[in-house]
């Protein structure tokens, strides 16, 4: 069981190896990546920023809760921050478990909780040169950054 906020490229293979165990019947890997298009706009990259100490604390709490809830110590999560290019991994979640159902449920639990609770933000850069903070609570999804005053909650 381990979690970290890191500023280097993530290595899914290393995390998969880290949770591997002959007591496990299944391992799952979740890799979140920077997508080329979001809300119909051409994305060229994403800056991830975190409230570091709290993000680490929340991430650790999620992993501990998943471990307790699904019954495996073999959960490792790394979230990357900084400037990420298209296709690069922002998060990797590796789980292994004696049983496949729990390996998959733990994976899903961790990513959903991360999205809800961990104080990390992302600013998308678009092909037209603009950039915006992504607000998953907004109707349309992104809050303009830099020009924050122009944003509306109805976006």
């Amino acid at each position, binding site marked *: 069981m381990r979690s970290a906020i890191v500023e280097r490229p993530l290595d899914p293979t290393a995390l998969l190896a880290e949770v591997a165990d002959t007591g496990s019947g299944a391992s799952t890997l979740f890799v979140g990546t920077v997508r080329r298009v979001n809300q119909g706009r051409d994305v060229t990259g994403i800056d991830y920023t975190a409230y570091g*100490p709290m993000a680490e604390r929340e991430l650790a709490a999620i992993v501990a809760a998943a471990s307790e809830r699904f019954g495996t110590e073999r959960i490792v999560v790394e979230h990357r921050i900084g400037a990420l290019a298209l296709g690069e991994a922002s998060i990797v979640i590796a789980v292994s478990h004696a049983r496949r159902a729990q390996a998959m449920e733990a994976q899903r639990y961790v990513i959903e909780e991360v999205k809800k609770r961990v104080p990390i933000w992302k600013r998308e850069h678009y092909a037209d040169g603009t950039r915006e903070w992504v607000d998953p609570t907004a109707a349309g999804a992104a809050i303009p*950054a830099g020009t924050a005053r122009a944003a509306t909650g109805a976006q």
Partner: protein
Amino acid sequence: MLYRWGTMPQTLSLNVLLFASWADALGSTVRVELPAGSTVADVLASLSARVSGSALPTPLVAVNQRYARPSDRIAVGDEIAIIPPVAGG
């Protein structure tokens, strides 16, 4: 608001941490002065007044790196952070 004179300072001076769109609007730390006994809601109201007219997303507030309720009291030395809608993962 209840507090005992002499044991509680009359004002709280706080450095509030800001992130993402709130940091763009106000800077990454903001100094806030509030009456002793103020709550998380008071901190947020004070900051919201400085960005009135803008449409920043409604944030949560963390006290000492944990999510706090609006009614939670702030104390001297607390680490207060404004947490706009998170978008990790």
